[in-house]
């Protein structure tokens, strides 16, 4: 499997660390809503089909990526930085990134 890192380009899955379900929302740090905390820590969407997930390019630029990947076919339809502020300057985002982003925007 290849993941096209917006900075590094297409790289083998071995360079990445899976950080799980990207649909989860972390409650406000001071929140005492235990249901929300429990759901955040333990409950997963786990769909059969397109899945929003987080990967870290730990064996490359170490950025965390927002990936939409199909869990039935492993096809990746979009990859973007988790941080929206990456690449505001010229040196953040490579050409690979713009291609992946375009694809994501097409889907959206």
């Amino acid at each position, binding site marked *: 499997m290849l993941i096209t890192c*917006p*900075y*590094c*380009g297409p*790289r*083998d899955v*071995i*360079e990445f660390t899976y950080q799980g379900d990207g649909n989860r929302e972390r409650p406000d740090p001071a929140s005492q809503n235990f249901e929300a905390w429990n759901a955040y820590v333990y409950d997963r969407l786990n769909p059969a089909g397109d899945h929003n997930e987080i990967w870290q390019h*730990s*064996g*490359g*630029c*170490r*950025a965390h990526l927002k990936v939409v990947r199909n869990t039935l076919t492993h096809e990746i339809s979009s990859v973007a*930085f988790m*941080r929206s*502020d*990456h*690449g*505001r*300057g*010229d*040196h*953040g*985002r*490579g*050409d*690979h*990134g713009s291609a992946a982003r375009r694809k994501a925007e097409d889907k959206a």
Partner: protein
Amino acid sequence: MVERQSPEPLSPLEPEFHVGSHGNFEHGVEIILTETRPGSIVQLAAWPGEEKKLIAAIRTVTGLALPDGAGGGLSDGVKSVFGFAPGKFTVADEAEGLAAAFAKVVTPAIGTVTDLSHGRTAIRIAGPKAEWVLAKFFAIDFALPAFPTGAGRSTTHHDVFAQIQRTGADQFDIYVFRSFARSFWKALCHASEEVGYEVQ
């Protein structure tokens, strides 16, 4: 070279660094391996939006003007710089003192400077089979159009994280964690035997 004030740092490769020719020489020596031992290696990281100021600072300190684009970089043979992550750059210099020099120009508002002069070991692989040997380790495309001269890449060979800069058509500088350097060096020598290599 600036005169060192402290003792010469020890190389982690020392007991496994065997100057001379090794391996299969059917086609002559096709790989040259060296340790470049830069006097300083620093990592620079800009806050989002401050990348241009950091690039200007790099130019001020090193005289090197970074090209645009992810992983872009260049080398003048004495100093080298390349991007390895969004807003992050590795700079190496034959001389010591880069970290102190950058500390003066990279203000806290621009980003951070981290001295890695001791923490990274720089190994140079050169020769017509350099791409062939590196392709044994790293799942990245080393062909010149995909990996132009001056550019940098962050990648991994199993547990060994590496930053690689192409410093010539047939030449790459590989920065690895010091603690892994000896293991990686041994593996690199082993993998080069097939084509014949010389340690300089």
